[in-house]
């Protein structure tokens, strides 16, 4: 007679089967709820084919013919730079105010932490809608949005970096009679500087993409150009602009990666 343990499904197998069936029920229920058919992408692929036939061949002449093209590339790059520059500046200040080793007063720490998490939660869509109302559509509204989002994301990251610095060095400096400012200057800044610089380069990389995306909501730059081309159904121009964007983003990413590798 066979041992029942070898015939019956094992506990591990049962657990796997339960997880799998629950997950598939949830997914199917969700698909049914929003009336989404995952295979619809393949069965209705001819729509994509139609679009692709309209998109190709790309009309690269628009890049050379349009005089404002160089300006909008420059504008997108400047938006990313300014967003990173000012946003990073404020993020660094706020991170010093909200990290434990640099800020001894508890309520200031909690207040800045709360502010940072509030900024982080507000979606960039809302921020740009508000800034477009405040300063009008254009690159300036985009820059201000990027500043705010950079503060939110990197403020928290920088705070964690400062919190994770090694304390013994600071304690040693304290023990020979320095004050807090000297401790920050000689113990914390040398520890965090490489990480801050590499994170700011990464922020520039992210902000570059975000700057392109913000163009849709009135942020100006190359994203706005692409949005306009799609709106008036000039898909051949849009393909050329997309190729341009991919090249631009890839170059910025490569530069930022190389610089980061050098620093670390």
């Amino acid at each position, binding site marked *: 007679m066979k041992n029942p343990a070898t015939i019956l499904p094992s506990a591990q197998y049962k657990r796997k089967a339960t997880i799998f069936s629950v997950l598939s029920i949830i997914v199917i229920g969700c698909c049914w709820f929003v009336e*989404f058919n995952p295979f619809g992408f393949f069965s209705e692929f001819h729509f994509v084919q139609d679009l692709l036939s309209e998109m190709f061949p790309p009309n690269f002449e628009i890049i050379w013919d349009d005089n404002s093209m160089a300006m909008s590339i420059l504008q997108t790059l400047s938006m990313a730079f300014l967003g990173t520059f000012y946003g990073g500046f404020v993020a660094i200040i706020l991170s010093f105010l909200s990290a434990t080793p640099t800020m001894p007063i508890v309520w200031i720490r909690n207040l800045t932490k709360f502010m940072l998490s509030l900024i982080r939660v507000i979606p960039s869509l809302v921020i740009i809608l508000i800034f477009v109302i405040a300063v009008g559509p254009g690159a*300036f509204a985009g820059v201000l949005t990027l500043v705010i989002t950079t503060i939110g994301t990197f403020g928290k990251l920088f705070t964690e970096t400062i919190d994770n610095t090694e304390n013994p060095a600071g304690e040693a400096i304290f023990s020979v009679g320095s004050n807090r400012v000297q401790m920050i200057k000689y113990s914390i800044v040398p520890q965090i500087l490489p990480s801050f610089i590499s994170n700011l380069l990464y922020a520039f990389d992210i902000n570059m993409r*975000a700057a392109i995306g913000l163009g849709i909501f009135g942020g100006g730059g190359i994203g706005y150009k692409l949005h306009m081309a799609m709106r008036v159904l000039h898909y051949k121009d849009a393909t050329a602009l997309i190729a341009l964007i991919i090249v631009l983003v890839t170059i910025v990413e490569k530069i930022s990666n190389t610089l980061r590798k050098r620093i670390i």
Partner: protein
Amino acid sequence: MKQFSIKRYYPIIVGLIVFAALSWGAAISCQIEWTGLFEGIGKGMFFLKNLFPPDWEAFPEMLQPALDSLILAFLGTFFGTLMAVVFAVLGAANIAHPIVRTISRFLIGLERSLPELFILLFLIAAFGLGSMPGIICLSLGCIGMLGKLLADAIEEIDSVLIQSLTAVGANKLQIIVFGIFPEILPKLLAYSLFRLEINIRLSVILGAVGAGGIGYELDYAFSMLQYHRAFSALLVVLVLIFGIEKLSAYLRNMLNIKANLK
């Protein structure tokens, strides 16, 4: 005696001047007028004052779109993770043929360099408005990030594992199912939970462009100048994002504890 030498500070001074010049030039190309900002602050404050109080009666109407957005993000993450696993396996040097790897890595990089919003615009141009282009867009968006992270995770797997599986006669599929999949599962779950956080934010933004859900409600209320209604939508969005963030952090913590126990 203190010795002060200006020469020590030359690199810092030069760096500051370069940065000041760069930001000045960038400010010109963006047509930044700081006076405009100060006037704008007044306008913005007036606008923010108009938001209060939220339209309490609109909340029941917000529940359906909020659920839509949530499901959009969940399904996008789910299908995106499945696709990302395929791309990651094809993009890992220790499994895939070098040519396949190059192609897969190229596609992953291509997706990463394209903002999700424009993928959505193209999908809307192809499929029309609705949740379908939104879900497809979010899934495609996962390929870039998760695909790269997972492909790197697979490449970090100890080669002894794969060699020993090959030695007992496993084929490629068996290596993937029994060797690689259990190995990357904790990382896979952690990354896709992290991506879920990103996707819930994205689904709000994509909703405004035409994927429906709470983002559409928000954008519509803003453009109809129904600020109280917009504020209630904004509150729902904040609760949604904050809730998902906490849930994801909690689940990831649990995963970490489990992984450490093993």
